[in-house]
């Protein structure tokens, strides 16, 4: 059997972009426009990783890193999907690991995402990596489901309310 390979999305590879868009549009309840992809891909190309098998794109993860209230660096997992027929083989787990490692290397203090409370596979996947549920968001999705905000703390900055981080920054300067 051929191995699944993992790599970042090739810039300008329209075929891959098209494949991942189709996959996400089939699997995620929220509709995303091309501008959402541009937002992520043009600013954090290294954080868009795909899984391929025999040339076919079968899994994707798209992330970003941005400062949160100027006090901590927050990695964010925006989208994750694995083609139905390839689920249950650890592909998502690998994609998430690759992204988290990259985000840790880039200096993230925490990694965050939102997922529907009814999405048991995704919740289990992230919670097995150490994410905890920090908030429940009321009717967060267009389909009216509540969401959980999940956070994986990387550094201790993640464990201090941002107002206090702001204060300590002011004290330090």
């Amino acid at each position: 059997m051929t191995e699944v390979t993992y790599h970042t999305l090739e810039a300008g590879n329209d075929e891959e972009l098209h494949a991942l868009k189709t996959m996400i549009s089939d699997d995620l309840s929220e509709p995303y426009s091309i501008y959402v992809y541009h937002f992520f891909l043009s600013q954090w190309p290294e954080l868009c990783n795909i899984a391929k098998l025999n040339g076919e794109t079968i899994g994707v993860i798209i992330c970003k890193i941005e400062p949160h209230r100027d006090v901590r660096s927050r990695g964010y997992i925006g989208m994750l999907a694995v083609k139905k027929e390839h689920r249950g083989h650890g592909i998502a787990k690998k994609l998430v690991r690759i992204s988290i490692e990259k985000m840790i290397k880039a200096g993230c203090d925490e990694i965050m995402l939102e997922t529907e409370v009814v999405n048991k596979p995704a919740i289990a996947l992230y919670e097995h990596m150490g994410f905890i549920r920090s908030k429940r968001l009321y009717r967060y999705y267009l389909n009216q489901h509540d969401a959980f905000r999940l956070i994986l703390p990387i550094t201790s900055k993640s464990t201090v309310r941002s107002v206090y981080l702001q204060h300590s920054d002011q004290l330090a300067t």
Partner: protein
Amino acid sequence: MSEQMVDITDVLRRKAREVANDAVVKSPQFSLFQGTQALEINNKRLDSGIIELSVEEEEFDVLCKRSLQEVLATSDAIFRNVFIWLQNSSLSVTVFSCRYVEELLVIYNKDANKGISSCRFGAVENVSMDPELLLVHKVLRSVVLGALHLVRLCLTLGQSGVVYEEEDINTQTMNLNVITMVESNDILKELNDSVDFLKSKYADSKDSEILQLILKTLVQLINLPQFIALKVPKLTDCSTPPQSPAMVSSLAALVDSLVTHVDYLNSLPQIPGCFSMGIQKRLDNRLPSRDLIPLKSEDYSSLKVLVDDLQRIWAISNRLTSQDVVNHALNFANTHHHVISRAIYALFLVRDDATVFGVEKVSDFLNEEMLRFSCWDSEYINTSNEIVKQKVAELTHQISSVALEWLSVMNQNPCRQRQHFSRLITVFDTLEYNSENFERNLKEVFQVNEEFEYNGELVLALPITSWVCYVKMDIMLHVVLRGFELELYQTWEFHQMYWYVNYLVDNILLILDRVIEYNRSKIYKIQQMKNQLKKKKGDQKLRYKEKMMKRQAQIPSLQLFVDTLNKKIVQYKIIQGLAVLQSIQLQKYIKSGILKTPDFPFVQNEEILYKLRMKPFASVGVPSLPPYSHYQFHLKNSLKQPHTPQDINHVKSSILSNIKIITDGIQSKDVTVSMHICSQDWLHWFRQLQRSCIGIGLQLQKPITATQRVVIDSKGFHRYFPVVNSE
């Protein structure tokens, strides 16, 4: 080519040549993030311009005559769509998707200043000659007007800041003015005229009768703003509670009738093309294309919920004390409500003029709360020093605005409640710091000595600070416990969270004990006056006696407050007992190895997870967050000393007997329990606690094997104490 047009073909070609392949072209004023909210042309899920419509939709005629049954089916669908919208759909897929609504709104928006006369479906001649034309242009039109007025009212509530736009109520109106220039009286008249018309022209018809029900219900709903303005004075012991307002009782009767017709209404065919996605295509739509919501998703049960809510809100007219207001608010927060009732409750509770129920200032309400807790007959109240009085007033003013924030949590959705409470922890903590400084200063600067003997020592009473600190800890407890309700904790976190509950309750019990002692010391001091009296003579004796009698009159109140605080203690002990029982059960799982913190790949150490979880409490001065090592130490110790069946029975029986004390108090309308308003809800609350106690108790008797796994069973149990099963 016209003069206003400029040919840019060349510029465009030139510029396009400069653009590199695969580069994003954007103006520097524009961030890519803004682009994420844009819709995309030709994307099926986003572009409502490419929605395909059926012939019936394309050719739908809003002007032609309709039968009574068609008008009834359409009116019912429009009305139900208002409630579907309020379950957080958008107007475009609900009320506005009706062609009659769309047509009327479009025509009205062309000339809104003309008010009701521009509310038409279009121009038709000789309407008055034909009853079936009148059914459309008079009756159906009035239903559309009534429904739109109701929509407008809900939009106003949605935008009033007491609930969240988009999250609680979707307020996007496709840029249409929702008949804001039409007077409600004009609409009421149209609705009532339609009722009269149906009565005279369609007297003996079931369809007419149901249609009249819809019209009359709309009339009552349009009157809802009057409810918000009702003043609700406090009851005195001898006054009888006011009757339910007429609009609420009529509404209740109408809705009860309406729901009996739902099956019949569901069986009526809809006019083909009458409800359509077409409006998303034709008008200003900023949302992705969305399917219409099936009509059967609403069967008027949410209208029933709304009416029940109004009755529950009105139940506050039975209040005697500020404690009743607090408990009523807490009960409101704990129970499920229609979003409109949540908005109404907030506006009904705290009015625009910053009064509670339109009759007392928030600061008076707060003062009563503090008096009933710790401040009754204290030096701050009795002092004749005007400066001190002024300073105390300033502080209570500051506390009032925070108390207002506390009140405004109660109508939020459950997720927001926890977030707001979490934010209030720091607000109250700061307030406590300020208040303590203030009270210490009173002694040092003004020699107002508010001291009493506690545990053999003379200590500062700090009555105001005690109240602030107590409320803060109670809020902290809410934040922890609501985490269970919102399913925020994974099972491996349960033990740690119940341990923290236990810790918080310990601290709450300490402060309650201190305040009770302080109140008792005031009673004792008054009782001691008798001895002093004996030593006085003549005029002095007379004056002292008068003073003593005045003070003695305070004793019953003080005693009542002590009793009230003791009942609070009973309630906290129930929570604490259940937390302990739950911990004992979890310890069994931990010991047998089927419950443990997993080995996480990216987590440095377990402490960081603890700190993240406890982030809301980390900044609090008192009670300070115990370090993770304390928790570990506690866990290790508890695993070493397993509980005997006698221990467990003792915990269980004291929980159950404490629950009984409270439920008896609710049933006998005991003022120290103060749960006589919405007493059924409270009884349910405590019965659920009882079920959790019994459920956990039964689970504790089951043997555990190392191959089992833990599963949470929350059904039927109290939301703070689900039963953790093994299977």
